């Protein structure tokens, strides 16, 4: 709310809107703030993974399988030279066939901020080859998180996977939300028989064992569907079981709000049902809903990972964190290429950040309760 009046600077608290108060309450929550920052960064990455990637995430490289992570150096033997890395050359152990990399310090390659790399479409629209940073020598790719068995850059794949995994959470929750809010709202607002019927349905859905249902549904997905369609179906499957919880939350809020006096007051003011719901009731539990969905997103991300682990989720060449982890999910990765578990770190980071954020939001959602 802007200060539209001529009043000479009322104390800011007094003209602070609800959302501002929530923000202030939220800001006090240090861990939640940290979570917010991480989530913000992650979603920026998810919005334009190409920019943050260094190498083409799908590009295989015969010369770099299982390349270990490379460090960024600032100083060489000659003193400070700016950010660079030391490339290395592949040799194979003749007996074990293990990849061995021999560093070639004399070939140190500069890293360029906003440099040129492979070309991609920013937001799927603008063709560009600018990246946050890039190797100055296109023949010497830089692998901050190493590579997988096909020499693909793990860092870049994580960036690309962020788009899939994070948006699956978001889209899935959005779907749950739409179903949940509509059904929960109808149930809570109208009550009576409709409420009874919807509540039975919700109970039924909640009684469904999620994992087998997920498994069965995911297994039922025709795998010849294009990646995007498959992706949509997976999100729908995940949200199919998620909406019931949200519907319960929404209904509960509706029921309690219905008895709030300001809602009665709005009715007496002559507001229509629609106006009561959308102008008066909905904003009041929006913060709770936001908190609930923030807490639901990480569950979806984990669910996607688990489904992928069981081989039922998204399939390569689609890149998601779950797909990446599935590829890493074996003893040889632990033993010889532990960096392949970096997507696990990304999952943990994202889920933790989202949980912290949701937790903080939930605490801050009711600024008057403090």
């Amino acid at each position, binding site marked *: 709310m802007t200060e539209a009046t001529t009043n000479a600077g009322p104390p800011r608290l007094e003209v602070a809107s609800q959302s501002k108060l929530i923000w202030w309450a939220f800001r006090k929550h240090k*861990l939640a703030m940290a979570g917010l920052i991480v989530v913000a960064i992650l979603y920026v990455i998810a919005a334009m993974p190409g920019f943050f990637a260094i190498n083409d995430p799908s590009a295989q490289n015969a010369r770099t399988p299982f390349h270990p992570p490379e460090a960024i150096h600032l100083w060489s033997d000659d003193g400070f030279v700016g950010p660079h890395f030391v490339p290395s050359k592949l040799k194979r152990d003749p007996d074990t066939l293990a990849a061995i990399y021999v560093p070639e310090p004399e070939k140190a390659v500069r890293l360029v901020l906003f440099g040129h790399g492979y070309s991609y479409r920013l937001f799927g629209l603008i063709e560009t080859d600018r990246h946050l940073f890039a190797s100055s020598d296109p023949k010497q790719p830089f692998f901050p998180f190493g590579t997988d068995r096909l020499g693909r850059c793990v860092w870049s794949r994580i960036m690309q996977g962020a788009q899939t995994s994070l948006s699956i959470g978001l889209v899935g929750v959005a779907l749950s939300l739409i179903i949940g809010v509509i059904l929960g709202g109808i149930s809570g607002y109208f009550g009576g028989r409709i409420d009874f019927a919807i509540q039975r349905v919700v*109970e039924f859905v909640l009684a469904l*064992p999620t*994992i087998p249902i997920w498994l069965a549904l995911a297994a039922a997905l025709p795998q010849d569907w294009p990646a995007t369609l498959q992706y949509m179906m997976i999100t729908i499957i995940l949200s199919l079981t998620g909406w019931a919880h949200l519907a319960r939350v929404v209904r509960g809020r509706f029921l309690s709000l219905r008895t709030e006096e300001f809602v009665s007051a709005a009715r007496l003011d002559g507001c229509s049902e629609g106006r009561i719901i959308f102008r008066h009731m909905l904003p009041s539990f929006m913060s709770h809903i936001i908190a609930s969905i923030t807490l639901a997103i990480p569950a979806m991300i*984990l669910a996607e990972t*688990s489904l992928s682990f*069981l081989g039922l989720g998204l399939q390569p060449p689609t890149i998601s964190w779950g797909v990446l*982890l599935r590829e890493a999910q074996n003893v040889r990765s632990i033993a010889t290429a532990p960096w392949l578990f970096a997507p696990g770190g990304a*999952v943990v980071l994202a*889920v933790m950040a989202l949980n912290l954020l949701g937790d903080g939001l939930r605490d801050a959602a009711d600024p008057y309760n403090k």
Partner: protein
Amino acid sequence: MLRFIFKRVLWMIPALFAVSFLAFVLIQLPPGDFVTNYVATLAASNEIIDQNAADALRERFGLGEPMLLQYGKWIWGILVHGDFGTSFEWQQPVGDLVWERMALTLTLTLSTLVATWAIALPIGIFSAVRKYTIGDYIVTSISFFGLAIPSFLLALVLMYIAVVIFGQDVSGLFSDEYQNAPWTWAKVADLIHHLWIPVIILAVSGTASLIRVMRANLLDELNKPYVTTARAKGLSEFRLLMKYPVRIALNPFISTIAWLLPNLVSGSIVVAVVLNLPTAAPLLLQSLLAQDMYLAGAFVLLICTLTLIGSLVSDILLAIADPRIRLE
């Protein structure tokens, strides 16, 4: 109360029909059927089954029949003979297969539950009572980490560490010599020896979320006036904490029993697969993947029944534990 139970039980019947039908449909949804899966699985090892034999299998399992007829036959068998059908893959009655796995599943789940509660409740209480202290922040961070880490990842890493670094045998629940041995104390000891890793892994995420729930519940209760009353009575902090707010904050946990029973089978599925546990979970997964219809159907039906029974039981327990619900 009895009326309530009766009504709930009555309501379960159509729900179970719906679930079983849904399960049946879901299992049939994937392209192909058990036989194509079977043939393809063999092909993965470059093994070939005679085409005639495959056709014969399909005919024998009645896979060519319309789905409704198959469902009707199945459900009729359950209702009339208590016969859940025969597993395509194992040629064994489904009932035997399912129940055989349940004892160990139960052991594992209960151990996990005990471990989860034993770890989570004290920490949750600590975290709530010492709200916004260093300890709380540490606990909070750890519990969020526990919530965030995918269990299969943790399982594999822990397993690797245990095997390669400590040389412990982690897969399965028994050492070889005890696997089919009769129950003795030595076998129990062996079981406990094997149980801890899966229990820890399974308990991690449960513990983390339980800590969060306990903390939130307790924080709600800690500011209630009855706590002040108890304090004004001269009770020690610990005693009053345990007797009043903790006691009341525990009530919501009773409703988690609803999820406990179905978790027996499905909750540990991913971890059980990684850790190679002889619980029902891997069998369920296999049956789903192999489209072993009656076996998978029986599992899904069982889990749903358990969920419904669980929620009924938890409602009853909640009523017993909370006089407000019982008497109103």
